[in-house]
């Protein structure tokens, strides 16, 4: 299923009465892999929530073209969730089926199998029965990724997916992101690490209240643009890509002709 294009037209968003994003226009092409970068308070999370339909625009609009039912899955920052809630890892992952089964229908055998496969893909099979409250930050983030796999939406929005997780988890999760991209899904991620963006994300939206630059990453992340956006390269921690699968995935990505 080919993902829809997401067009943003003169979008203005405010957060707590303060303007967060103003007059943003552009589009995320179907199948693109875009990083959203910018300083704190640049409106990155607000934009992501607006794309997911959780934040009403003050002006302008967001068009999903062609319109689809539940086209978007959002990976929230883990701090947005109540991690002490006493359900098991597997149950939380299974909630990804919500759009298909709603409040009352049961899981089919195939859906159950999809949950198992997702747990396997993020390496949590052994911990499936554990309560989510007992998972480490990295394991919990893996579980959220598994829920997203189960959701199986054509457009994936990730809010700081590699924050506060260990290096190994970050590399594994990056693999998943690159895998989604290879499978033709549209992926949009809020990220801090400019070096990671340069290495793994073909498109970038550099945001500071409005778009400083939006397009192919090398053209976006020029020193002049980064200075204009007010983010310092040295301020970001580098995500080590020292695991072979992640390195290969990135290398494969770089070998591909530029879209």
């Amino acid at each position, binding site marked *: 299923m080919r993902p829809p294009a997401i067009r943003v037209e003169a979008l203005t968003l405010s957060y707590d009465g303060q303007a967060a994003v103003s007059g943003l226009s552009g589009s995320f092409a179907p199948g693109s892999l875009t990083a959203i970068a910018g300083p704190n308070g640049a409106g990155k999370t607000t934009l992501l929530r607006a794309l997911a339909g959780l934040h009403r625009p003050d002006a302008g609009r967001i068009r999903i073209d062609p319109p689809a039912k539940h086209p978007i899955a959002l990976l929230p920052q883990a701090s947005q969730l*109540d991690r002490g809630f006493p359900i098991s890892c597997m149950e939380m992952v299974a*909630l990804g089926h919500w759009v298909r089964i709603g409040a009352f229908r049961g899981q089919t055998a195939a859906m159950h199998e999809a949950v198992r496969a997702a747990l396997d893909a993020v390496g949590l099979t052994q911990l499936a029965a554990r309560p989510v409250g007992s998972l480490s930050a990295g394991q919990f983030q893996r579980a959220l990724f598994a829920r997203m796999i189960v959701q199986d939406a054509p457009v994936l929005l990730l809010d700081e997916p590699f924050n506060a997780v260990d290096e190994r988890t970050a590399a594994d999760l990056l693999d998943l992101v690159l895998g989604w991209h290879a499978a033709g899904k549209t992926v949009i991620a809020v990220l801090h690490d400019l070096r990671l963006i340069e290495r793994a994300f073909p498109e970038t939206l550099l945001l500071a209240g409005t778009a400083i630059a939006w397009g192919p990453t090398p053209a976006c992340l020029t020193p002049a643009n980064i200075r204009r956006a007010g983010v310092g390269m040295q301020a970001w921690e580098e995500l080590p890509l020292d695991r072979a699968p992640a390195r290969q995935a990135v290398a494969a990505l770089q070998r591909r002709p530029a879209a």
Partner: protein
Amino acid sequence: MRRALAGCIALSLAGPPLGVFLVLRRMSLMSDVLQHGILPGIALGAMAAGLSFWAMGLGGVLAGLCVAMLAGWLTRATGGREDSQLAGVYLLALALGVAMLSAQRGVDLSNLLFGSVLAVDDTALLCMAGVACVALPGLALIWRPLILESLDPGFLAANGGRGGLWHLAFLALVVLSVVGGFAALGTLMSVGLMMLPAIAARHFSATLAGQVRASVVLAILASVLGLLGSYHLDLPAGPAIVLSAGGLWAIGLALGPRESLLRRLRRVPEFG
């Protein structure tokens, strides 16, 4: 006595599972608000139709729903801290209710405030059983969306889940259960049998279903112990039941298999 036991078992089935969700959603204070909030409604019911149980119950349910919505709206509208708004609402409701009831002749205020479980008649028993019959299947119906709304409200909202609707349905069930409890335990203690077993349950199970089951078992145990204690020691039944529930909570807190003081002392690692 047998009526009292049957009534308390009905309440033990209806209330504690809802209490578990109140605790998990950090809404424990809401139960206090509701138990005080129903008092003006009960007073209105008594004014309109005398001491008819149905009139007072209906008034209580309506007042409880109003208070629940008022408290929710106040919190959203002022952006203030929820607990202070709730405290304001329930203190006002309690004063208003007591004033309204005192203004009427022939109303035994302490009966309404503290209940008289041993004087439960068939009507009240029927009502408590009715509450249990609605509250349990009701909770089962909203089980999944309620979990999702508690765990990750953004996910529910992003996927067309109408979180507010489930929240409201949940509050309606809580109101029903609080009103069901008032005949037996009085408005000041109706929540005791609902919250104490729910708070204790987390010391007995790590899973949601386990906590719900534990809360029901604890509540029934507290009812039986409380009624026996009230009979043999000549205590008022309502406080005896709530005290028993409190005793079970203390035992769970001190010696329970999970997150208890004993566990902490021994530093036993916890799995599941």
